[in-house]
Structures are given as structure tokens and as C-alpha cells.
């Protein structure tokens, strides 16, 4: 269906404008002169890095064509195929529009240039985005265009290994790649849940120091796992395992689509190495544990005595935003949970009603009506099946999406905290340096040459440290900014693709529903 090029918009009411909230762009700066809604005629004409220019004229991908099914696992719902996070649309105007916006931001400020990219002040924290951002964002565009299809991972074939309380589930982790750093183009390994947790542990220790947003894995669940250990066959165990498999797959996909994390040797080892040493000390990573860890860091930050005074409010504003988002998502998740439960109830009630209808049909003495009622009972049975699938859709596509992002936002908060810690280190180094200088001054007066020499050495040492920590802080700041932008982009893409998937699954349900009732109609008309 050609939904793009030949669309004639309906006459648009005079001064109808979308909420101003929409125009408030990702990085919080107000967009005077950059109203994207006006500039829609040639959106792609603006500065392109390496992204493909001529996408506008192409047809949007066929809604009903099969997506490239990476995951071959038996899924509970026929619609939750690849719940991948990686972008599957190079034709994605959306992605381009978003990147274009930030690029324009920097583009315009780069043009106003020399004034804004002033010298780095030491005590205030004005970043000069103009000087630095274009590089990182262009890089972002490059990396993004590059890494979209370079590594595909899937998590499939859950298999119960062992018996009793020592049993565990092993998953097949398959990788398909064109990158040379891997041992071959396609390969797979078997991993268990604690391996995934172990990977996260290693990555978070290393990468979060740099301000990276390390995707968090799904939570541990003692209750869920115990049921599985007992037997993998009952429906709730099946659902649990499928939920976990899908979550692990999304987790890995997020990891490999992150350019820095992909380069990490631990990631490569996880994907490639046949015998991975058992990860220990994964206790900290139950759901509650993970949250506790994040909140502990936040508390430490709040208790800091020296308060940061940012003249660049980007970080403060963004942090506030992240906190609010997390809150909103939790609320939304609660309602979607309720939707899933109500849908399951509808399933049950429909099944029960179908049986009752069948009985009524048997009891009916008019032959044609009796047949019609029995047919109605069958239709309601099929409706129950539809509702069942819709509930799975509600859950696996919608609810899990929200749950993922609630966890991710926790990780985002984490990286902000890392930046604060870096700032704190720098401040402490500065105050230590100050003390050393004061000590040196005192020694000058007291005239103790050997101690003076030591003092001078210490001062040099701490001066170097201060410079180092300052650089670290700057670097972390830049990384955090870059990471957050990337995160928001991915998040928007993710939500968009998942919502589309959700709507598509609903659409397919509707088509089947129509068929069922259209088949029933002649039966009803045949009553005489």
C-alpha cells in the first residue's frame, strides 16, 4: 500500500498546531526557526552524513510481508516473531528526521560559531556543544548506518539440562555477522541465564565508568525458575521460559547494537567461546538487587556535600526528564498489566460462554435455530482463541516493552550518577591540590627545603591528577550526552516498531474475526 508519496492531506483547519510539547526537542533547547513541522517538504535535503539520501520516494515496507525472522524459537504467540531492537528500516524517515534535527541544532550553532566555542572554563561547567557535538553526532550517524545489519543475534531453543533443584535452562545463542573480528560468519553457543548476568556484571563494571548506558538483563525469578525446575510442561512454565528467552534476546540485541559495547572483548567472548567459565556472584542482579544498586548510587550522589552548579542545564533537565519518564512508564505498565489480566479473563469467560451456548443449542427444538446456536458456540470458541493470542500480544509486545524501558531508564540514571562521581573525584582532587599548595606556602615560610621538595613533587602529582580528572569528567560528560541521544533515538525507534507490531497483530486478529462472523452469517440467515 502506497501510503507515502501520493497522499493529499485534507484541508487543514486554519491555525491548527500540534502541542508545543512536541516541538520541544530532545536536547531541551528551544527550537526557534527550526520548526520541523513546517519544513516537511524536503526533510531529507538537509545535511546528510553517510545516510542514504533518496528514501522519500520509496514505498514504505509492505506491512504484511514477513519480517526477516532472526529468531527461530517456537514462540507462544504467532505474532511475537523477532522482537528485535535493531533497526529494520533503512527507509525509516523517522530515524532520519530525528538525527537531522540534532544535526541541525549543531549545524546552526556551528555557523554562529566562534563565539560559542569559547575557552574551557574551569569552575563552571558550560560545555561547548558546538565544537564537540558535530563530530560525535556525525560519528553516531556513521556508526548507526554501519552497525545496523552487521551483527544479528538470536536466543532460541531453551532446553532443560539436569534434574531437580540443580536443573537449569540452556539457550542457544546464534550470531550472524559480517564483521571480521569474529571467528566466522555464523556460529552459535549454548548459554545459561547466569552467563547473561555475568556478562552484564563485567560490562557494567568496565563501561559505566565511561558513562556508557549498559543495557540491563532481565531479572532473576526464584519462583519462576523453581516451577521450571519441577517441570517445563505446564502453561505457566512455558510462558515463563518464553518470556525470559525473548527478554534475553532483546538484551543481547541491545548490547551488540551498541558500538562501544560490541568492541568489548567480553561481549565477543560471550558470543563465541565454547566453554564459558561459570559466572559467580550474580546475586546482586535480581530485580530488586539491581534497583537497589542503582538507588544506592543515587543516594550517594544526593548526599554529596558540594553541590554541582551547572550553567549548562542540559544534564539537570535531562535527569529530571528521565526520572519522570520512569515514573510514567511504571504507571503505564501497571495499566497494561491490568489489560493483560482482563484479556485473559475475557478468554475464560468466552470459553465458558461457548460451552453454555452449545448446551443451549442442543436443547433447542427448532432445527435451524439449534444448528445456528451450535455454530455460534463454535464462533465463540474461535473468539476465545483470538483473545488468547491478543493477550499474548498485549504482554509480549507491549508490556515487556515497557518493562524493558523501565529497566533501561534505571541504567540511564546510573550513567548520570557516574558523571557525578567523576565530578566529585575532580573536585576532591582540586581541594587536595589546594591543600597541598597551602602546605607548600607554609613550608616556604618555615624554610624546610627537603620537605619543600617533597611538597613540590606532590603538587605536580596532584596538578596532573586534577587535569586528568577534569579531562575524565569532560569525556564522561560528552559520552553521557552522546549515549543519551543515542538511547532516545533507539527508544523512539523501538517504541515505534513495537507499537506497529502490536497494531499489526491486532489487525490480523480483526481479519480473522471478520472471517469467523462472515461464515456464521449465512447460518443465522438460514433460521426459519
Amino acid at each position, binding site marked *: 500500500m502506497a501510503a507515502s508519496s501520493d497522499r493529499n492531506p485534507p484541508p487543514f483547519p486554519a491555525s491548527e498546531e500540534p502541542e508545543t510539547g512536541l516541538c520541544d526537542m530532545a536536547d531541551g533547547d528551544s527550537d526557534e526557526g527550526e520548526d520541523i513541522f513546517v519544513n516537511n517538504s524536503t*526533510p531529507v535535503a538537509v545535511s546528510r552524513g553517510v545516510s542514504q539520501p533518496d528514501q522519500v520516494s520509496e514505498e514504505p515496507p509492505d506491512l504484511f510481508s514477513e519480517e526477516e525472522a532472526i529468531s527461530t524459537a517456537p514462540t507462544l504467540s504467532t505474532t511475537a516473531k523477532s522482537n528485535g531492537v535493531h533497526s529494520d528500516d533503512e527507509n525509516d524517515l523517522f530515524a532520519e528526521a530525528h538525527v537531522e534535527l540534532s544535526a541541525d541544532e549543531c549545524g546552526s550553532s556551528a555557523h554562529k560559531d566562534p563565539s560559542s566555542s569559547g575557552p574551557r572554563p574551569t569552575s563552571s561547567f558550560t560545555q561547548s556543544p558546538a565544537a564537540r557535538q558535530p563530530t560525535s553526532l556525525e560519528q553516531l550517524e556513521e556508526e548507526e548506518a554501519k552497525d545496523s545489519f552487521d551483527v544479528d543475534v538470536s536466543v532460541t531453543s531453551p532446553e532443560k539440562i539436569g534434574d531437580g533443584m540443580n536443573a537449569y535452562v540452556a539457550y542457544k545463542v546464534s550470531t550472524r555477522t559480517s564483521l571480521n573480528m569474529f571467528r566466522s560468519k555464523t556460529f552459535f553457543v549454548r548459554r545459561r541465564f547466569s552467563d547473561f548476568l555475568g556478562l552484564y556484571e563485567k560490562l557494567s563494571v568496565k563501561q559505566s565508568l565511561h558513562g556508557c548506558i549498559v543495557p540491563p538483563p532481565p531479572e532473576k525469578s526464584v519462583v519462576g525458575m523453581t516451577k521450571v525446575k519441577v517441570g517445563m510442561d505446564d502453561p505457566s512454565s512455558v510462558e515463563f521460559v518464553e518470556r525470559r528467552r525473548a527478554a534475553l534476546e532483546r538484551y543481547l540485541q541491545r548490547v551488540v547494537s551498541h558500538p562501544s559495547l560490541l568492541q568489548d572483548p567480553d561481549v565477543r567472548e560471550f558470543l563465541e567461546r565454547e566453554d564459558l567459565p561459570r559466572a559467580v556472584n550474580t546475586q546482586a542482579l535480581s530485580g530488586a538487587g539491581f534497583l537497589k544498586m542503582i538507588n544506592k548510587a543515587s543516594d550517594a550522589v544526593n548526599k554529596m556535600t558540594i553541590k554541582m552548579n551547572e550553567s549548562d542545564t542540559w544534564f539537570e533537565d535531562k535527569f529530571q526528564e528521565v526520572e519522570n519518564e520512569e515514573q510514567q512508564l511504571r504507571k503505564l505498565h501497571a495499566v497494561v498489566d491490568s489489560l493483560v489480566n482482563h484479556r485473559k479473563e475475557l478468554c475464560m469467560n468466552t470459553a465458558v460462554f461457548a460451552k453454555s451456548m452449545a*448446551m443451549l443449542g442442543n436443547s433447542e427444538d427448532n432445527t435451524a435455530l439449534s444448528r445456528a446456536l451450535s455454530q455460534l458456540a463454535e464462533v465463540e470458541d474461535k473468539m476465545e482463541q483470538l483473545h488468547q493470542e491478543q493477550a499474548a500480544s498485549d504482554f509480549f509486545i507491549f508490556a515487556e516493552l515497557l518493562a524493558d524501558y523501565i529497566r533501561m531508564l534505571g541504567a540511564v540514571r546510573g550513567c548520570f550518577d557516574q558523571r557525578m562521581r567523576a565530578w566529585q573525584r575532580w573536585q576532591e582532587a582540586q581541594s587536595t591540590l589546594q591543600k597541598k599548595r597551602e602546605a607548600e606556602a607554609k613550608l616556604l615560610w618555615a624554610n624546610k627545603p627537603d620537605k619543600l621538595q617533597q611538597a613540590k613533587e606532590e603538587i605536580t602529582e596532584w596538578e596532573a591528577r586534577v587535569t586528568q580528572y577534569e579531562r575524565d569528567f569532560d569525556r564522561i560528560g560528552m559520552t553521557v550526552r552522546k549515549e543519551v541521544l543515542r538511547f532516545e533515538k533507539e527508544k523512539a525507534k523501538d517504541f515505534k516498531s513495537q507499537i506497529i507490531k502490536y497494531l499489526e497483530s491486532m489487525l490480523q486478529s480483526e481479519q480473522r474475526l471478520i472471517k469467523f462472523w462472515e461464515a456464521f452469517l449465512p447460518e443465522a440467515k438460514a433460521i426459519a
Partner: protein
Amino acid sequence: SSWFNWAKPVQLSREELTKKYIRSVSVDLNNDASLLIDIPDALCERDKVKFTVHTKTTLSSFQKPEFSVPRQHEDFIWLHDTLVETEDYAGLIIPPAPPKPDFEGPREKMHKLGEGEATMTKEEYTKMKQELEAEYLAVFKKTVQVHEIFLQRLSSHPILNKDRNFQIFLEYDQDLSVRRKNAKEMFGGFFKNMVKSADEVLISGVKEVDDFFEQEKTFLLDYYSKIKDSTAKAEKMTRSHKNIADDYIRISSLMYQQKITRILIYTHIVVTMSFVSLQKVEGRVASDQELKLTELLRYYMRDIQAAKDLLYRRARALADYENSNKALDKARLKSKDIPQAEEHQQQCLQKFDKLSESGKKELTSFKGRRVVAFRKNLIEMAELEIKHAKVRSSIQLYYICFIMCTNELQYAWGICKILCEQI
């Protein structure tokens, strides 16, 4: 939040739908121009509903050709009960009394909503309140319709429409409560209580002489229990649909909020709209199912109870006749009071024969009515399901397209508006 206002449930068309669906549970009513009855409006004050019963007639037995009177639910019950108590109508299926107006459901939900107000956003609360008001209105409309149908069943019945009390009900422009009190004192609800308690036992116990009635008895007893069960199960199913619709309301109001829009950036409007419209349709499905299937089942469940009552009365008449035979034998044996016993036996026989003849006619036409009504409703229900699914499909399709092409957002905004207005 201007968009929120035009997304509120469209009450007008719901009204139309309600009227149409309720009326279709029974067919061919109110077609005879010699006596046309309807309830054009009603007033709901706290618990009491005051119906305005409007009559248009060409019959000379009425004082005026057109008139209206105010009536309460209790007046309808009085009318129904007097008809049931009337011996002459023992061989007729008396149309079931309309159920008491029940606003307990929406009222309880309103109460819960008020309690939970603090935990909701303003939009969410407003939206849910609107939904509840619509539900309240739907209950109100429904009760008006069932009372109207009761009267129209009476006016279309060749014997019942000549009943004196029926005329009083339609015409008497004073308060009926005095008459109601008197009636209660006269009858004491005697017959009604008897019917309620012993009917099953008596109907099954009496030896049946007529094949037709034997079959009807078996059929009606079995069918009644099945349809009662189906009605209850259908109600549960409908309630689930309503719950889902409520969830959609909460989702759409949460998504609307400013903070959420950050996540979705360009797509928030379309996604929000999709949920709002889904909710409207889902809510519509709930009310359509409720009105079509559930109401149909509920109505015929009550009608079958009325048919069972007829069978009971006939069974009692048969029992009376058999007793009178026994009494006659005894009298002949004792050679005492034979003429009275003979006369009594004749009366019982006549009564029984009259009941059987009239009962057969009534039950046969009831069968036909039932089949016709089921056919009509099942067809309409299937057509509605298809229609709603198509509407939902187009909504989903539109939104998928627009989410994928976000530069068209300003158009998406406009089109979403138009789409929602059409639902």
C-alpha cells in the same frame, strides 16, 4: 487539552443503538394503529424513575384519543400481578414484568472512581467519569425500553389489550398507589407465592394426557435452565469487554501526558489516538454485545418463565380436575351430594379444557416469536461484529501508516481527528 474533549463517547448514537437493539428482542410490536403506546421520556431522581406513558388510540373505550400519564415501576408491577391473578387469563402467557431499574452497578463504579480520584490524572478521571455517565445513561435507556416493551406486548395481545386494569393503567390520571395498596390487601400475593414455590414439582408430578404438553413441559424445563446459564455467562463476557475498554481509557490518558510524549516524540499523538479510538470501539462492542445477545437471552429467559407459569396453571387445573373426579367417586359411593360433585367436576373439566386450548395456541405462537427474534438478533449481532472489526482494522491500518511516515505528522493530526469523529 482540546483533543480530549472531542474524543469523549458519542452519546447520541449510543442512544439510537440502545433503542434499536432493545426493541428488536421482540418483534412486531406496536404496529396496530388502534392502540399505540410508547414511553417518550422518563425522569430519574435518585432511585426513583418516573416514566411518561403516552397513548394514542382510535378505540372508543378510551376517553380521549391521545394522552399521557406519569407512572412508576411499582405501577407496572401492580398491572402485571393483577393480570397474573386474573382467572380468565390463566391460559395465557402473561408478558413478564419489567425488572426493577438497577443503577447499582454504575453507582458503585462512580463511588470507586471517587475514591480513586487522588491516584489518577485529571484527564483520566474526567474520561472515566464520562464513561460512567454514559453507562449510567445506557442503564437508564434500557430500563425505559423494557418498560415500554411490556406495555406494547400487552397492547398487541388480542385478549389482554382489552383488560380493564390495563386501561386504568394507561388512562387514570391520578396516582395509582392507592389502588396498588388495595390490590395487595385483596390478593395478598397469594397466587403469585404459590406459583413461585411449588411449580417445578407440580409440573413434573402430574400425569400428562396430551403429547403436545408433555413435549412442551420437557422442553421448557430444560431450555429454561440452559438459557438462564447462558444469560449469566454472557453477562460475564460483556463485563470483561467493559473492563478492557476502561483499561484503554487509562492507557490513552497516560500516554497523552506531556512526560510520556518525550518517549514517543513524534508518535505520541497517533498512538494516543489509536488507543482512544480502540477504546471507543471496544466500549461500543461491549454495549452492543450486551444489548444484542445478553438482552436477547435475558428477555427470553423471563418469557420462558412466563410460559412455565402457564404450564403450572394448567397442571394445577388438571390436578383440580383429577381431585374433583375422586370427589365424585367418593360422593357416588356415599350417595351423598352427588349433583354438587358432578357440577364441580364439570367446571373443573371445562376450565382445564379451556386452559389447554388457549395454552396450546399461546405456546405455539410463542415458539414462532422466539425463533423469529433469535434469527433477527443473531443476524444483526454478526453484522455488527463484522462492522466493528472493519472499523477497528481501518483505524489500526491508518495508524500503522502514519507512524511509519512521521513527516506527515501534521496531516496525521488532522486525519486522526476526523477518524475519531466518525466512530
